[in-house]
């Protein structure tokens, strides 16, 4: 965990309201594992604006990148930042995915797809895993990172709610079809996306008895486990902190 002033190497729109931000940081890049996030201070002024937690999309030797969607005040301001400016960044934070070998299915919805890229890269390069990625989006303009996954050597399945690209319907319907086929049995399913999607992925994997890890999102105060603001109900009662006990959880651990 570091707190660094990171120079912006790039901050550009990629499609729809999605942006890619590349930050220079050798220390964060060296320490990060897939599923972890950065907590970024968007503004230096006196206006009190909490840091924005954003999942790591990719690491290179000297840089770390994220993909975000402009949804409100914080991400809106972030999109106006220019290369060579710097940002105060805390990271890498949180508990990441458990890497498995064999066959893995990655299910992503919306910006959730972005963090799965880092995971896919490690699964293929470090575990020699066979990776199937299911990318869900509302419409073809919002399909994220399809080519990036193909270039890594993943089998890519695209799914749009309006049917403008790939399978028409929800990404979870595609997952259900996939898991229903005899012999498709993957060793693990990883999922990152909106809560209704994760809920359904959790239900399906439990039905098919396949281990599943989900990455959750929640508004955060501190990002380091101190304030108890970002909790999620635990399956066994009580609450778990998304920033510290997660953001990646075994799907059986949390009440989705």
């Amino acid at each position, binding site marked *: *965990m*570091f*707190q660094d002033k990171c120079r912006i190497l790039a901050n550009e729109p990629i499609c729809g309201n999605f942006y890619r931000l590349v930050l220079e940081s050798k220390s964060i890049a060296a320490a990060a594992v897939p599923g972890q996030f950065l907590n970024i*201070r968007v503004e230096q002024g*006196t*206006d*009190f*604006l*909490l*840091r924005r937690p954003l999942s790591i999309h990719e690491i290179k030797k000297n840089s770390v990148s994220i993909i975000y969607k402009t949804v409100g*005040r914080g991400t809106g301001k972030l999109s106006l930042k220019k290369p060579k400016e710097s940002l*105060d960044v*805390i990271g890498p934070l949180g508990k990441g995915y458990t890497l498995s070998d064999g066959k893995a299915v990655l299910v992503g919805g919306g910006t959730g797809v972005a963090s799965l890229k880092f995971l896919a890269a490690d699964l293929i390069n470090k575990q020699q895993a066979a990776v199937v990625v299911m990318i869900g989006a509302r419409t073809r303009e919002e399909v994220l990172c399809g080519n990036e996954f193909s270039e890594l050597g993943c089998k890519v399945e695209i799914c749009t709610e309006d049917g403008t690209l790939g399978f028409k319907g929800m990404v979870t319907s595609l997952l259900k079809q996939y898991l229903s086929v005899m012999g498709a049995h993957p060793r693990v399913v990883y999922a990152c996306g909106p809560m209704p999607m994760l809920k359904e992925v959790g239900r399906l994997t439990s039905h098919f008895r396949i281990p599943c890890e989900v990455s959750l999102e*929640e*508004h*955060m*105060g*501190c*990002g*380091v*486990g*101190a*304030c*108890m*603001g*970002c*909790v*999620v*109900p635990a399956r066994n*009662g*009580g*609450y778990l902190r998304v920033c*510290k006990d997660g953001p990646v959880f075994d799907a059986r651990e949390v009440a989705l």
Partner: protein
Amino acid sequence: MGDLKIKIGDMQLKNPVMVASGTFGYGEEYAQLVDLNKLGAIVTKSITLKPRAGNNQPRLWETASGLLNSIGLQNVGLKTFIEEKLPYLQKYDTGIIVSIAGETVDEYEKLAQALKKEKFDALEINISCPNVRTAKRMLFAQDPELARQVIRKVRRYYKKTVIVKLTPNVTDIGLIAKACEKAGADAIAVVNTFNGMAVDLKKGVPVFKNIVAGLCGPAIKPLALYKVYETSQAVRIPVIGMGGIMNFHDGLEYILCGASAIAVGAGNFIDPQIPVKIIKDMELYLRENHLGKISRLVGSLKC
């Protein structure tokens, strides 16, 4: 060299900058980012007799220059605190202030009894959490008689420094502070969060399930500053000031208004380096202005 040392009750601190309860966990959460040895004191998350799960989501809501929270005192409980959290903090060269919270006078008494033999510097009695209500929907810190009862009971067992944390949600904070002083408190911490709420316009419902939540951050600074001023005018014991402190100048305003020490709360979320920066700037300020001791500035506002 500027002298930052202060004394509150029997507690000696190397500087008057603390981190406020509920914003710094049990210290360990921030240890990789902040040199805990530099802090004047760490006030722990409030501890209850039994572990508390806390409130349902949502717990946080950003407002203009502020943050509404409704955590509901989620904490590990007394036993785990003594066995795991306190020993961790004791490794550091910083003041340890243990915050306690209860729903009844009896619970505060039991907490004080259980903690009396443990090694730490002061007890902070949190009688002002807006997110946990007693049956009467009144906080101990909203009634001088209830406040007095809690402090008397705690005092019976706990002989070292006792700080009482008050709510700003009262008409006359001076009146409550005086009652605490009379009941044996060594210092008053001012303030806990201000009552606030937020509305979910899409659904036409309050954002928080309890309706009310606690507002913190720079939005409350002028309000909290006045509460600190009022309190320091009413009592002789030291006041610890907090509310929206983001830098040394904010802290200095509190000191001039009567605070002997200050605490950084929500500011830790924005930049965990704020407390350490304040300490550095404070020392520089004393040196550049040949002021000697920070304690000389306490309450030095020319009115």
